[in-house]
Each structure stands twice: as C-alpha cells, then as structure tokens.
C-alpha cells in the first residue's frame, strides 16, 4: 500500500515538473488575470496563479500542497482508520489484547509503522524532485529547503494520522472511522475555499503560503520546531494519547 501511495505521488509530481516551462508561459499570459484577481481580492486565486511565476513556489504547490497534503492525508485515513477498527471488524482484537503486551505497546507499534509508511514517501518523492527538476527543466532546487518542506508536510500528515487513529479506536467499523476522518477533511477543504473562512481551515497550516517561503529557503530546519510545527506535533500527541487511553478501556 505504501508503495502504491509513493507511486501515485511520484506520478503526480513527474508530469508537473515536465510541464513547468509551458505552465510558466501560461502563467505569464495570465498576469492580467492576476492583476484583476488582486482587484477582486481573491487571495487564493492570486496565490495559485502567482505560484506559476517562480519554480520553487510551483514545486511547493505540486509536491507538497497537492501531492503530500492530499495524497498523504488519504494514505493517513486509509492506514490510520484500520489500525484498531479493522482488528475489531475481523475479531482479531481479542487475540491481540490477550497477548502478554500492553495495549499502549500495541498502539505504539502499529502507529509507528503507519507513521513511517505515510511520511517516508513524502521525503522520497520530494527529494526525487531535486535532480528531476535539474535534469528535466533545468531549475535548481535546494535540497535542504526541500527537506524542511517535506518535514513540515510530514508533521501535517502525522497530525491527520493521529486523528484517524483516534477515530479508529472510537468507531467499531473502519468505514465509519474513515467517514468521520474524511468528513473532517472535506469540511476543512470547504472552509479553505471560502475566502473569508479560510483562516479557520486546518489546511491553512500547510498551504502554499507556508510551503512557498520554506522552498525559497526562508525557513531552516532549526526554525521548524519553534512555530506552527510544534503546535501541530503537540496536537498530534494529544490525539494519540487520547486514542491510547481509550484503547485501554476498549469494549470487545
């Protein structure tokens, strides 16, 4: 499953890199529309069109906002919701909980594997874009900036994984857990697309305004854990601890 997820992200990124010169020309042609968008105060539209202007912004949009955020969230929902709910569905939870290991250790083992499975492809695909960008379109990308952006994207996806893990403990069926987590994502997307409500969307913490400056080298690895990322990690930890506590009292 992780391999499929990695291949999908790579398949999304590769044509995006290859299409860059053409899209850049289109972007130049769309400049009047950008100006008009400024008048209309459509921040999202302006940013998306503006992202076509500079390659690091464009790469951030393709690799992290479109690829990492959405594919990563989908993978986190698929993997996270199955961690406990699938065990209950297939009636293997009783077998697992009756072994000489604590529920906390079971959850930690499962969560760790899922966390590696959802974050490793983000790094691999993002790093693959560095030489690909150089060879295909001749645009240089900073390896360290790409790593920092991939780390931010991974933290965002980890927070989704923590949420879906909690859903997996709360709901008896994986489908119900996935529906709850999916509903959260859909609502966040809907909020994100409403300009006045956009600041309340969870996607705001991992959009082009965050990835763009990172890809330009404005944020270093050390800066990552002094701002929004620390809150994301803290939120993930709280969700995980709630899931852990609930698993200890799970009804068979």
């Amino acid at each position, binding site marked *: 499953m992780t391999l499929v997820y990695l291949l999908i992200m790579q398949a999304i990124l590769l044509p995006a890199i290859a299409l860059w010169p053409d899209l850049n020309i289109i972007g130049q042609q769309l400049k009047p529309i950008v100006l008009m968008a400024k008048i209309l105060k459509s921040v999202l539209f302006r940013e998306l069109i503006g992202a076509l202007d500079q390659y690091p912004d464009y790469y951030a949009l393709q690799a992290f906002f479109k690829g990492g955020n959405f594919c990563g969230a989908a993978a986190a929902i698929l993997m996270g919701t199955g961690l406990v709910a699938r065990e209950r569905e297939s009636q293997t939870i*009783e077998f697992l*909980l009756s072994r000489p290991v604590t529920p906390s250790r079971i959850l930690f083992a499962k969560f760790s594997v899922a966390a590696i499975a959802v974050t490793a492809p983000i790094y691999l695909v993002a790093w693959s874009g560095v030489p690909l960008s150089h060879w295909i379109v001749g645009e240089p990308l900073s390896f360290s900036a790409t790593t920092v952006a991939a780390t931010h994207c991974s933290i965002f996806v980890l927070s989704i994984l923590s949420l879906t893990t909690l859903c997996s403990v709360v709901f008896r069926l994986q489908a119900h857990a996935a529906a709850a987590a999916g509903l959260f994502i859909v609502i966040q997307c809907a909020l994100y697309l409403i300009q006045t409500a956009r600041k309340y969307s969870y996607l705001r913490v991992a959009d082009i305004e965050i990835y763009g400056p990172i890809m330009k080298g404005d944020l270093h690895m050390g800066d990552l854990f002094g701002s929004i990322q620390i809150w994301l990690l803290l939120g993930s930890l709280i969700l995980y601890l709630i899931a852990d506590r609930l698993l200890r009292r799970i009804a068979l």
Partner: protein
Amino acid sequence: MNPIDLTEVQKRFGDKTVLNGFSMQVAPGETVGFIGPNGSGKTTCLRILLGLLPRDDGQVKVLGMDPERDAVRIREHCCYLPGETSIYHGMRGKEFLRFALSFYPRHQDDIQLDLLEHFALPLQKKVRSYSAGMKQKLALMATLIPDVELYILDEPDRALDASTRFFLRDVIKKLHQRQKTILLSSHHLREVETLVDRLVFLMHGEVIENERVATARQILARRVCLKLKPGAALPKGARQVRRDLDGTLHVEPDGDPVSWLSRLSPDSLVSAEIGMVRLEDLYRVLVEEAGS
C-alpha cells in the same frame, strides 16, 4: 495458592447483570469445565480473568495477581483461546503461527509435532482460504503449543469434527498430566465430562450448586427419548415432558423406565434412549426446578 480465585464477582452491562456474585476456585493442575448456556456469562468471566474486562465488584486473583493491575504478567503465564475465531485472514497459516508463538518464550515441541501431524493444515496457504474448522485448529495450535502454567479455552471444540474433538481431548489430557491448570468452556457436556476433574455450571451469572445439578441429572437419567411410528400411542404410566420438532418425545415414566419401555410394542417404536443427558435438557430442568 489457587491459579484462579474469584470471589463474589459482579459484572453489569448497563441494566443487565451478567455476573452476580460469582465465585470459583481452580486448584493447581486441575482441569475445570465451565458449562453454561449462551449468555450465561462464561465469556465475560474468562475476559475478566485475563484483564480484558474490568469487574464491577468482588475479588479476582489469577496466578496470585490481580488482572486489572498485572494483566500483562498474568498473560505471560497464561494462554487464551478466544471464543470467536481470532485469526488474521491476510496472513499465511505459518505466518500467523509464528506471530502467535512469538509472544511466548517456551514451546512444547512434542505437542507442536502432534498437532502439526494430526491437523495437517496447509500452512503455506492464506488463512482466508481455510474452512471454519481449519481456522479453529490453527487457533488451537497457537494456544496449546506455548509452555505456560494456565490455559483458558473458550469453546475449544467449536467447528471441530468428532475425530478432531477426540484428538483434542487427548492433547488436553496430556497437558493435565503435566500439571497444567486448564479452564475450558463448552456446550458439549458429554465430551467435557470425560476430560475434566470437575464441572462448574453457570446460569444467569451465578454458579449452580452441585446438589442442584445432581438432582437435575437424576431426573434426566430417568427420562426416555423416543420416536414412535405414525399412529402408535404411548403406554400409560408416563408423563410427556415435551415434543421436539422432529417428533422426538421426552417422557418421564412413573416407575422404572426400562420396564415401562418394555411395555411398548417394538412395531410401534422407531428409536428409544434412556438417560441421555444433553446440556440444553439439563438447563431446562434446572430452570423448571428454579421456577417450581
């Protein structure tokens, strides 16, 4: 120290009381059959023993430890076969077995060989292709091979054919000879009786006293189950207790059942059996006794 010691255990699910002051002791090396109809609280009791469910009241000690505090330490010395088939369908048989046995450091190699030979499971195949009986055999292997002090088996004979049940009986006897403590629940009264030291009857979350069970068994020992040919009538001197859907009559003769049965013409009889004690009949009698 008794490996299992329950005193006045209470367990409720909402308004329903599942265990009502339930007490039971199992001595070291003892094999105890845990008998009760569906919903009598057997599985709940077994889950409390393993710390999978908290009790509402009472005292529980398993191997001298409290399951709510030392569940992991208890499970290191105890193997549990869940009542529901609890196997990963995506794994191959050998993968599941390796995974299940990896939790226990010591294994009983001779029992492993016996089980492998007798069960002859296609361990290379995925578990999802197994029949219900094959899954139960695999679950039994995962439970009986580890070398632990206590075995808790929830309906180990479920989905097994007669020959496998007899083989299982031999394996359990072998464990008994090794002074392992075994608590097993089952619906097959006759077969459980042959391999346990003692039976514990559970009904509505309470243990039924041995005297009551003995009385019920005496009543059943005098009962005659018979099938008559069409048009044949029952001789006088017997009370019809009930009639099954297949036409089997359950009657209680006033005097000696053999002499009463001899009054019946062989031409009018399809089959007859005296003193057949089935678990459902036993519980029916116990419920009737309680009602009267």
